[in-house]
């Protein structure tokens, strides 16, 4: 791991994505949903960075913004040394092959009127000039890699099961030999038995092609399985970022502690004795976040300072970062 750390593939700095709220008769701009508010992180070549958080915390928005499916409100994104934060659509298009995405809903994210070979082949048509026989050979190769039977090439997405559809989505993402893939909850819509298959496939492909993943999920045990480092998000901000084993063994931020305590234990005796940290209340609205620390309204360890001053995102140990006043002297 140590030597990989030297080489960040994706650098995100001060990323902000705000969605404007319009209201009233004249649809005036009255505020913003701060879906992502000042996120900075680096993803090293060949690693899997897990991004966890509850629904609506902005993790999918980070994933989409990183490969510029959203316009950034502020901040910079560098992929493979190239700044793409404000590239126009025409500038961005030739860079698309290097960065791809696997979407959450494998049913909705495939065009229902295109066959599997058309779906996988479209990026090839757009970005490469292959002869028809080369093209079909490449499509078959990709289908083999993700474990789809070649005879399915002329079928439509609705004829497949969820796991097979997700394999189509993965084959499509792989078509242009990307370096970096954003996996936006790729397993959330699948059965548990299929989840394992798809995750194993992703790991296998990572080893084979040296892929870098940003793996977004709310499934903490799955993240523990696949990720090298884990970033925890809450209300548009990253509250903790740490190597996987450190994070699961000794969560530093109160929110991470609460999240991890919600993961059930397999051993019933241990589970019965365990102390759960139960958070009170709801997540505040991202259009009107609380003053000070975003988590202060629900934090069991909140102090006076938390309601006034926003904690900085700082190093709290070897390769670990957190944003919490409690940890500032560590």
């Amino acid at each position, binding site marked *: 791991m140590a030597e990989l750390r030297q080489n960040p593939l994706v650098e995100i700095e001060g990323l902000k994505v705000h969605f404007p709220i319009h209201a009233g008769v004249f649809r005036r701009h009255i505020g913003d949903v701060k879906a992502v508010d000042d996120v900075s992180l680096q993803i090293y070549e060949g690693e899997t960075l897990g991004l966890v958080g509850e629904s609506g915390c902005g993790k999918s928005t980070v994933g989409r913004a990183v490969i510029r499916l959203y316009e950034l409100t502020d901040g910079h994104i560098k992929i493979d040394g190239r700044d793409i934060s404000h590239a126009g659509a025409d500038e961005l298009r030739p860079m698309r092959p290097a960065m791809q995405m696997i979407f959450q809903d494998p049913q909705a994210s*495939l065009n229902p009127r295109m066959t599997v070979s058309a779906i996988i082949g479209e990026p090839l048509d*757009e970005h490469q000039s292959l002869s028809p026989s080369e093209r079909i050979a490449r499509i078959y190769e990709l289908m083999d890699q993700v474990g789809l039977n070649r005879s399915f090439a002329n079928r439509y997405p609705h004829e497949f099961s969820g796991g097979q559809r997700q394999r189509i989505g993965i084959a499509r993402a792989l078509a242009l030999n990307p370096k970096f893939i954003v996996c936006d909850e790729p397993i959330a819509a699948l059965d548990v038995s299929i989840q394992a298959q798809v995750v194993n496939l992703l790991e296998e492909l990572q080893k084979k092609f040296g892929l870098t993943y940003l793996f977004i999920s709310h499934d903490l045990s799955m993240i523990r399985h696949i990720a090298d480092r884990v970033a925890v998000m809450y209300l548009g901000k990253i509250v903790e970022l740490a190597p996987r084993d450190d994070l699961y063994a000794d969560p530093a931020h109160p929110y991470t502690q609460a999240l991890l305590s919600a993961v059930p234990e397999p051993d019933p005796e241990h589970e019965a004795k365990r102390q759960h940290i139960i958070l009170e209340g709801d997540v505040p609205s991202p259009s009107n976040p609380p003053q000070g620390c975003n988590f202060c309204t629900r934090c069991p360890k909140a102090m006076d300072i938390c309601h006034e001053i926003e904690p900085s995102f700082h190093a709290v140990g070897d390769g670990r970062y957190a944003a919490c006043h409690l940890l500032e002297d560590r």
Partner: protein
Amino acid sequence: MFNYTIRRSLLAVPTLLLISLIIFLLLDLAPSDPTANLPLTIPPEVREKIRQSLGLGDPIYIRYILWCKQFFINEPLNILEHIFGWQIGGDRLRVLSWQTRSPVVDLIVQRLPQTLWVVGLSYVLGIVIAVPIGVISAYRQYSWFDQIGTFISMVGFSVPTFFTGVLLIVIFSVWLGWFPSIYDTTHQVTDWSSFLVQVKQMIMPVSVLALFNAAQISRYMRASMLDNLNQDYVRTARAKGVRERIVVLVHVLRNSLIPVTTVIALGVPQVFGGAIITEQVFKVNGLGQLLIIAIQGGDVPVVQTLTFIFALLIVLFNLIADVLYGVLDPRIRYD
């Protein structure tokens, strides 16, 4: 798909027979009298004889079966003879109009070109205008273009054609004198200048109907585009690095056209039905006007035949819409 089409067509036969019976009974119940338009000086016993000669003395089921025989057997045989030059022979009684004593099918054949030209062209024009407006309106939702387009389509949808028609006549025929207010069916197109005259007299009825059709279709188009623009597969296409033009025109438009095609197919019988009111306003003597005159004159065979042909077209285009849906959308399978 083939079996499905055959099965649906077979099912359509009893449906249509039932429809024809219902139309026949309704017309029989209607208190109209084919001799009512005749001069009052005709004595009642002569009127009664006229009624008898029209076949009104027979019981209703005899009249219905007679019409069925004339329409379903005699007329198709006539058409076959006409097309292939065969001589099938036999003395076949045709469906005759009570008012004109000429065969109803001949009347329809005479009227069809006017209706197809005016109403059909307005339908095509309406589609051609509506699709791009719907696409752009949806792509730039809430922009000025969308606001204006939505407003115009609301106006076109809600203002009846007898109002817009008369309004256009007042403005362009009475005040400006640009276009004739009456559509002259006897006009022959022989050269360039007579072609211009034809275009001039078509502009107003066509645009009145086109506005109405375009208003309807553009709303469907816009709604369908909006549905699809937010779908995940559109984001997938963008993530592939596909050009925006292709994303919109290939991925989104193709999927959005599926429901719109159905709406368009279902609207076609209205073209044949003629825009009764608009034809009346501009004096286009098409099928709609034929129907109105026949209703006024109590001309049961014409009304019966025309109404039944409309019903036939509606059943036919419903089937076409369903089959088209199956062809366009691979998720739909009929078996």
